[in-house]
């Protein structure tokens, strides 16, 4: 239905808006992983398109729906955020910290500290981690893998 309406607007508008409309449709039709690449295009396309639509709003109306969401997670960004939160924790020495450092064997923390670390991760990423799975996460690498699992981040 949106395609038919867009065809109608294409006949009444100039060629530049046709490019913007079809690109926007392609963005919406693409699956989620592709959105990150197409998103800069749709941002660039947005302001001229809304200006063009705004000129004749009473005849055509707004029919492209926009959604808001956080920027998509990648393994790199997850790793950076996890390491940042760990460096802020006062019982960890930032120089000694690496992705493979074991909390108990390398960094000398105990299970209570590990619970605090997992709580900080829950606050940073905004979702609950059940206790049974939380007590198995003993290195930053494992935490990154777990979050990537839960948030469906592939690479």
């Amino acid at each position, binding site marked *: 239905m949106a395609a038919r309406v867009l065809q109608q607007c294409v006949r009444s508008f100039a060629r530049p808006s046709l490019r913007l409309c079809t690109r926007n449709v392609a963005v919406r039709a693409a699956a989620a992983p592709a959105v990150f690449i197409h998103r800069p295009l749709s941002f660039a396309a947005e302001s001229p398109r809304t200006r063009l639509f705004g000129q004749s709003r009473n005849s055509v109306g707004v029919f492209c729906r926009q959604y808001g969401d956080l920027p998509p997670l990648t393994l790199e960004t997850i790793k950076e955020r996890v390491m940042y939160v760990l460096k802020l924790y006062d019982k960890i020495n930032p120089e000694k910290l690496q992705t493979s450092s074991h909390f108990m064997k390398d960094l000398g923390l*105990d*299970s*209570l500290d590990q*619970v*605090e670390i997992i*709580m900080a991760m829950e606050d940073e990423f905004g979702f609950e981690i059940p206790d*049974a799975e939380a*007590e198995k996460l003993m290195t930053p690498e494992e935490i990154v893998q777990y979050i990537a699992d839960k948030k469906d981040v592939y690479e």
Partner: protein
Amino acid sequence: MGTRLKVLNAFKTLHRTRMAVFKDDEGALLAARLKINEEFKKNKNETSEENIQKMIKMGSDVEIVLRESVVQVEHIGHERLLLRPRENLLLENVPYSDAPRKKS
């Protein structure tokens, strides 16, 4: 084992309640965090199952007291206080009844 999981669970709920009760109050948050950690670490090497259960019960009682009886009040300017109640502390606006009706 089960007890270990219960202890860690009690620790986590205490910290979560601490964060909710002392929200935005950095000094109180830090003091409460140090106190909770200190108390837990003091009894870290306890082996008697009965004592551990008692301590877990003590921890959950503290958590209930914090959640139900502690409210935050903020100083606003000179000689003015602002109460910041949490959602679960607000009661329904029913008139006080000395002898409440028994539910059948």
